[in-house]
């Protein structure tokens, strides 16, 4: 998976998504119990959820590529960013755009802090130690948030510009449901260009490939790793903000499930590949919605869907949909 990182597979990514969509629509039409507008509504719901997953999954995939570790604390950085957003709007009365910028600026500090305190001291330590440290950092953030903010949900302030409902025929969706895919697409394009063309981006790829050699070549490895955490945290913050606008209840444990699912999305798409993360996000988002839509009898199993997909992918194609199989480094 360290092989062809950040390959530009945009076309194939889009193709895969379209194929999946077509297959589902075809299936639904076949069984014929669903009317067109209802199916359309489900698809809109799924795309909106999927693009949110995609946004957060990119952060996971970037850290994984650089450090080869699951950043369990990513989901809690996401959670902390929601608290930042909550406080900047309710306590400091910021307009939401300013709040978004402040949160996107403040959240990376948490990411950097975690990297510095919990991951950097263990560089070169066995992989299991780093994994445990990541779990510990996540645990600490959750407990600290519970202690500081209490377990009761904080109501994310309503942002009419984002939450206003648009009706097209009998299909309803919020403005935020269009904003999220646009942001995700924009970030995708920016990141891919950055990684392929900017000097720092190239250095990032070098570190991902082999950081010892990158260091020898004069790359500031620690700086690159910090930068990765900054980018990942900004994505978590933006994703968190949109998440808050869409699902306005902020609790200390709220990051856990979305975090796991987004990591699964990153693995499914092919970890180390930004396009893969986006595809994985869409597969999970759409899949979760469509499983409830097409098989109402098993709606209680919805949360298991992500894990079933994960295991199937790991068995059939361990490197994920877009990842390229690589031999283990000795």
């Amino acid at each position: 998976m360290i092989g062809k990182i950040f390959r530009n597979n945009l076309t194939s990514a889009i193709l895969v998504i379209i194929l999946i969509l077509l297959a589902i629509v075809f299936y639904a039409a076949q069984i014929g119990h669903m009317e067109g507008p209802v199916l359309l509504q489900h698809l809109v719901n799924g795309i909106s959820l999927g693009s949110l997953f995609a946004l957060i999954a990119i952060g996971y995939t970037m850290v994984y590529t650089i450090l080869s570790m699951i950043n369990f604390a990513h989901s809690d950085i996401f959670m902390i960013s929601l608290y930042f957003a909550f406080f900047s709007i309710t306590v400091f009365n910021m307009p939401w755009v300013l709040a978004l910028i402040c949160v996107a600026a403040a959240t990376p500090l948490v990411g950097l802090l975690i990297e510095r305190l919990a991951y950097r001291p263990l560089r070169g330590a066995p992989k299991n130690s780093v994994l445990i440290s990541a779990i510990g950092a996540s645990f600490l953030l959750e407990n600290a948030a519970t202690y500081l903010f209490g377990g009761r949900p904080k109501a994310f302030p309503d942002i009419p510009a984002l939450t206003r409902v648009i009706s097209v025929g009998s299909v309803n969706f919020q403005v935020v449901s269009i904003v999220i895919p646009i942001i995700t697409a924009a970030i995708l394009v920016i990141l891919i260009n950055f990684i392929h063309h900017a000097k720092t981006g190239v250095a990032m790829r070098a570190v991902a490939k082999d950081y010892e050699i990158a260091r020898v070549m004069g790359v500031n490895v620690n700086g690159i790793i910090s930068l990765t955490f900054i980018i990942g945290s900004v994505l978590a913050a933006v994703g968190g903000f949109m998440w808050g606008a869409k699902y306005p209840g902020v609790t200390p444990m709220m990051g856990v499930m979305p975090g796991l699912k987004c990591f699964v999305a990153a693995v499914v798409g092919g970890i180390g590949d930004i396009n893969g993360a986006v595809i994985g996000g869409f597969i999970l988002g759409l899949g979760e919605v469509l499983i409830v839509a097409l098989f109402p009898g098993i709606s209680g199993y919805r949360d298991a869907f992500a894990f079933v997909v994960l295991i199937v992918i790991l068995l059939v194609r361990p490197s994920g949909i877009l990842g390229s199989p690589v031999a283990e480094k000795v």
Partner: protein
Amino acid sequence: MKNINGKTVLTLGVIAFTLILAFILNGALDSYVRRILNLCAIYAIISLSLNLVNGFTGMFSLGQAGFMAIGAYAVAIFTVPAELRASGFYLEPMMPLLANIELPLIAALLLGGLLAALVAFVIGFPVLRLRGDYLAIATLGFSEIIRILFTNMQSVTNGALGIKNVPQLSNMFLIYLAAVITIALLHLLLTSSYGRALKAIREDEIVAEAMGINLLKHKLAAFVISAFFAGVGGGLYGALLGTVDPKNFIFTLTYNFVLIIVLGGLGSISGTVIASFIITIGMEWLRFFDEPLKLFGIEILIFRPGLRMVVFSVLLMVIVLFFQKGIMGQREISFDMLRRIPLRFGKRREDR
């Protein structure tokens, strides 16, 4: 004391002493202290099972909560007296096939362990080909799938309502007997050639394979044995609580055992046992952090609910970062080691 017979006698003596002590304490202690000490022993069993995979074989599994759930449900489903079942399963009656089967606790525990082992075998076969963190996330996924299955299988598990009236097990002697048996079996396993093969895999998979160790077979064996003990531990856990419901077995439960084996030392039986006691008792002891504290009549504001868990997680991070080897590292407490302690301290004094 140097010959093996002497050591064996000594070991048996320690075991007998532990069990007799458990037997005596069972009558002497109040139910609160007894409950905590029982929990220590049960956590030790489950942590040992996790350490077999994570510490001794060098894999990273996060699936213990799922295996525990299987064991706990085996105990809950089969040991509740048949006449009490209908009152619990009031939404949907229990599957007729299961409704009248009643098993003694020991049989249910073993059944739970075997079922967990069977599930581990089925999922381990494909999953164990994965490396490191992929395995972690896949096993975590499995444990969540098991929980969600149990939540939805209303006629077998009673879904979210859980199963109440599980005959309670609070006898320290029985629980400590189970712990001693677990320790003994794992010790025998790990000192056998099989155990050395597992450790070889931990040190270097490729070298181990080159030496003719069948990787998948050995990993699978470790995984299945681990699941068996986790199932038994889960069964004891269910019997200790007296009620079982799927929410108990959310994947974060596994983190407790990860913490224990990290503190005790990845790859140390005695360390795991010590850490189980420290963590379980420590969690209770740290409770005062949650209570308002008044010093000289002034209420210290930082003492409020939640502080305990913050302190606890900070301690965890300190251990992970600064004492990576934990209490015991990969070593064990042995009689030889105990004999050497005075020597070591003497030596240190000389060093100065």
